[in-house]
C-alpha cells in the first residue's frame, strides 16, 4: 500500500568500522520519507537476517567497504531466502569493484550503488522497486 512508508534496514556486515556513509544514507532516506532501521557496525549475516525478519522490512541495504563483499553479501542473500524473505529487495553500496557486480546480482543483490550516488537516486530506485507489505 503506497500510503505507508517503505521500511528499510541499513546494515553494515563484517569487520569494517566505517559507518559514515551508512549513517548519511539512513538520515537521507529518513528525509525522503522512509522508515529506516539502523543496526550499527559489525553485523554478522545472521544478525542482519534476524533483524530483517523481525522488522518485516521491504528493503535491506548493505554498506560494505572492507572488501569482503563477495563472501558476506551472497551469504546474507541466502539466509534471507532461507527465512522466506525472498520478496525483500536487497541492495548494496560502498566500495565494490565493477567486475564483482554481475556475480553479486546473480547471488540476489538487486542493485549496487557506488561512490557518488545521490540519496535521491537511491530513494527513487527503492520506491520503484520495493514490494510493499500487506
Amino acid at each position, binding site marked *: 500500500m503506497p500510503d505507508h*512508508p517503505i521500511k528499510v534496514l541499513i546494515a553494515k556486515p563484517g569487520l569494517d568500522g566505517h559507518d559514515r556513509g551508512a549513517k548519511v544514507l539512513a538520515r537521507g*532516506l529518513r528525509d525522503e520519507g522512509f522508515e529506516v532501521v539502523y543496526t*550499527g557496525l559489525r553485523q554478522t549475516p545472521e544478525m542482519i537476517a*534476524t533483524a530483517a525478519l523481525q522488522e518485516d522490512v521491504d528493503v535491506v541495504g548493505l554498506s560494505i567497504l572492507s572488501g569482503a563483499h563477495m563472501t558476506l553479501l551472497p551469504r546474507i542473500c541466502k539466509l534471507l531466502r532461507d527465512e522466506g524473505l525472498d520478496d525483500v529487495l536487497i541492495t548494496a553500496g560502498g566500495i565494490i569493484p565493477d567486475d564483482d557486480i554481475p556475480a553479486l546480482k546473480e547471488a540476489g543483490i538487486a542493485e549496487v550503488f557506488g561512490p557518488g550516488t545521490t540519496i535521491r537516486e537511491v530513494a527513487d530506485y527503492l520506491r520503484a522497486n520495493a514490494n510493499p507489505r500487506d
Partner: protein
Amino acid sequence: MGEPGPEPAARGRELAEGALAGDRRATARLLTAIENRTPVAEAALRILYPQAGQAHIVGITGPPGSGKSTLVSALIANVREAGRPVAVIAVDPSSPITGGALLGDRVRMQAHAGDRDVFIRSMAARGHAGGLAAATGAAAAVLDACGFDLILIETVGTGQSEVEVAAAADTTVVLEAPEMGDEVQAIKAGLLEVADIVVVNKGDRPGAQRTAAQLRAMLVAIAPRPGDGDERPRPKRPEVLLTTASTSVGVPELLAVLDRHRPTDHDSGSAAARLARAEAQVWAIAGDRVRAQLHDDRHREATEATLRAVADHELDPYAAADRLLGDVQ
C-alpha cells in the same frame, strides 16, 4: 467498517495461527499489518486478543540519551539467563515533515539478534503523540498471545508529560540520567508521578548517587502510603534504583523489582491498570471508526459541508460535533 471482508479475514486467520504456532515471520507480518491498520490486522486480533493477557508489560521511558535502549539490552541478557522469552517494542519518533523515521534502538540490542526467544521490533510513532505509536498496544497484545511473558515497551525519548506508556504497561519504569536537575524538577507534576520504578542510570557518573537521593527524598518520603483509607486518585510511590546499564550493574536488582510488580489477578492496582488500557484501546478504535464512517462515500459530502460551516463561523464546533455524531450509525 465493521467485520473484515472474507479475504482479509482468511489472511488474518492464517497469520494469527502462524504466529500462535511460533512462526516468527507470521508474527512480524502481523505487526506490520497492525501498524498499517489493515482489515487483516483486525481479523487477526479478533483471534489473538482472547489468548493474550498473560504477559507482564513493562514500559521504559525517559529523556533521550538516558540509556533506555542500553537498559533494555541489559534486561534482555538477564531475562535470558533465566531462560525466559522476551519481546521488545522500541518506538522512535517520525518526522512531522516527511513522515520518515530513523529507528536506531536496535543498535544497542543486536547482541541478542541470534536468539530465537528474543523478538525485537522497532516502531515509528507515525505522528502519534505521547511517546508511543498508535499500534503499540495492539502489537503488545500480539506478542503476549504468542507466548512472550515479558514485553518491554521502550518509548521515544520523553520529557515531562508523556504519560501514555503508563496506560499501555502494567509497570512503568522512568529513567533519569545523573544531574537531571534539582529537587524542584522531582516535584513537578507529570512523568515522575506515573512511575512505579524510577531508575537513575549511568550510575558510574558523578552525581548519580546524589540524584537518586534527591529523587528518593522528594518522591518517596512524602508520597502517600497505599491503604491508608484515602481513595482519591494519587501519584504512585515509586522505588528509586541506581543502575549502570552498560555494565549491567544494578540490572539484576531492577529485574527482581520488576518481577515483584508482575500483576496478579487479585491485585486492585493492576486491575485498574488493565481497565485503563482497555479504555484507551477501545476509545481509540471507536474514534477511528467514527472518523472512517464520516469520510466514507455516503457521508463525505455532508461531513465536509459541516466542517466548512465551522471554518466559516456559520456553525459552532459543538453543534457540528453533535450533528456529525447524529450522522453515524
